[in-house]
């Protein structure tokens, strides 16, 4: 697979993984680009699964960025406060229920702890096998299974909370910016 094919085949998977791990479009673009830059500079001849390998790079990059974020000092707090979060903007005007559901689901997913969110994304979204996820994250297989179960539990709990308490969406003020 040449470089362009590699990018075309896996750009969406890598980008979506980054987007839902980092919860910020700009960061996700940065990390996604870095993943493919590293991939193109590397020797890929001995790889069994290019997708798993790319996601391993993405996971490392995301972990690194999250670590660096946490090393913030003083004004970084303010910068973080002001930085634009991931925008889902379920538009009342466009109003497609499916989009609404998907956006709600995306928001719920963001509320799941990173370590659980990560395995859910790799296993379900990226369609890796349990063994690949375990290998990629350097975790025992049992831990991966346990994290998937706990991630699913978190999602179910969030969904129940959402269904039980969320305010009705249809009356939302269309003029209020969601950024």
């Amino acid at each position: 697979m040449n470089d362009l094919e590699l990018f075309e085949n896996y750009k969406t998977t890598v980008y979506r993984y980054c987007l839902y791990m980092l919860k910020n479009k700009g960061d996700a673009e940065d990390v996604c680009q870095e993943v493919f830059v590293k991939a193109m500079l590397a020797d890929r001849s001995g790889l069994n699964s290019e997708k798993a390998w790319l996601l391993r790079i993405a996971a490392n990059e995301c972990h690194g960025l999250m670590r660096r974020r946490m090393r913030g000092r003083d004004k970084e707090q303010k910068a973080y406060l002001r930085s634009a979060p991931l925008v889902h903007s379920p538009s009342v005007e466009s109003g497609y229920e499916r989009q609404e559901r998907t956006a709600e689901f995306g928001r719920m997913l963001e509320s799941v702890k990173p370590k659980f969110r990560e395995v859910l994304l790799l296993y379900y979204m990226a369609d890796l096998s349990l063994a690949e996820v375990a290998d990629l994250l350097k975790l025992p297989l049992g831990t991966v299974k346990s994290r998937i179960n706990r991630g699913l539990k978190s999602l179910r709990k969030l969904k129940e909370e959402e269904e039980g308490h969320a305010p009705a969406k249809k009356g939302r003020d269309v003029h209020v910016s969601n950024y």
Partner: protein
Amino acid sequence: MSQIANQQVAERLRSLPDGSPDYDKMWNRICLEVERRRSGWNEQTGVAEHQTSASSVRRWMMAASAAAVLAIAGGTTAYFMHNLNNEAVAPAAPAGQQIEASAQVGEVKLTLRNAVIGRRFFDEEDRLALQLNLSGLNNRPFDYAAFRKGTLTDLDSGQNISLTSMGFDARKGIDNLNVTQYVQDNLPAAGEKRHYRLVMNDLYLTGRSEVPLNGEIKQGQTYNVLPEQNLKIKLTSYEWLSNQTKLNVAYQAMGTEPLPQDYDPAGGYEGSSYLTLKNGDQTIPLSSSMADDQGKLESFMLQDLKLTEQERKNLRLVYSYAETVDKIEGEWTIDFTVEASKAATQTYSISLNDQQAFEDRTAMKISPMKVSPFGVEIPIVRQHPNSTWENGQFLYYGKMTLEGDGIQAMGIQRPLPTNKEARDRLLTSPSQLIYFELGDDQIQDLSGQPLTLKLRDAMLYHKYPEVWTPISAPQAKAGDHTKDTMPDGSVMDYQVTRIGEDDVQVQVRGQGQFELISGMLLQVDGRSYKPNAERSEIAEEGDRVIFTEVFENVPQGSNFSINPGAYGVHDPSRDLNMELQAGETPKS
């Protein structure tokens, strides 16, 4: 969860939207960057578009941050190493298990001093900190030392554990060349011992050098900076902005810029080349930098220096670059055993002497706090008596500092109510966390230690949907800065400009008291317009923060007005110092 529900989750995860990024542009930037790195040009990365909202925010973050990474939207990551902590804090007393195992190549000794295991609250994971020291480099002039390669092996399982790159910073002296390596995998469980082997290969010493740009500084001029390497610098722009308080410099390197050998941008040290500004002997640091295939654009903020006209004219540009100045080839191997009973430091509960003062100022309750050798976690719960956000309600502290013996850490609060969705969520799920993560040299057992929590820059929520500020019809020439007093008494300082035929830009200057949060609206002849969030910008000018919103497809009309949406007002009366005491009772 049932199998059916699992399938639904899987389907939804597979159909998650990606927000439709511009993959074509991304591909172009990737190609540029790959080409650049292959040519060994430098590790800063291509930015095809200089003006996007996210990039503006990030540039500002870089300017504001003392720390390491500038992530530029549209490019990848550029690394700058500024001193993380300018204020002197005494090193912490060693924590965990004392190891003191060494390996030596020639005179250069690598020592593993301590191993500390504890809980990191950010991800609720235990981790092992290995505190390493490098010595024996006394007679070699250098700024950074970094190993070309490092591996850690769990000898009990045979598994290799990934290491982050380790850069030792010698700029403050070579007597204390310390780094801390963190490991989250293959830790010994309670009561266990685990055997490890650390192998580091080939130590590279990097020095930074400076070459002044001789002659008159002017746009279009070419300067011969490294003649022996046939490297010239062409100044493509030299532009003063913002009432002569900001300098933008753009340049192209004509030739290959220097780079340390086998340079790893993630190596934890500064390897890039750039221009710095000198005011006499004083170096004015870069506030932001971008690179693309046309060269680099750098900005310097000078508003705090209050330079005279003559001093401005006397400023000099200097080309700063890094190169490998020495290399010690060899292998440093350290076998060591970590005993959980010695290395693990408990998570303790923490008590607070005056919780009421916090509640009075924030209307939030503090749940039991926890402390580990790596930081402090303070859970807080918001009180929303009326299930809505009310004017004057506390949002967050902009600056939170934890201080103690050998400790000075800044706090981060998550999630933050800085957008409508987060605020809505906090109405039904009011729990938040404040984290303080200790620096590498501050790791310690905090049990029994008195700590001071300093909370500053309280921001209060305000929103008056019915209050509109009439403005003049926007003109292509920027209007005057106008001030309007809001219902709470704060002052909104704004400037309106029409951009082209269709767009209107509104800039609001935060004056240290008033800051936009989200949801500004523009009204034209009774019709409301939302800004394009992708074009929102935040920039810092001295103590001010400039918020820019752009409204698109705005017709020529007769009656214009703006509403700031949700905004924050600082309230210094809510500043608070709290005394904490890490308890003796381990928290399970």
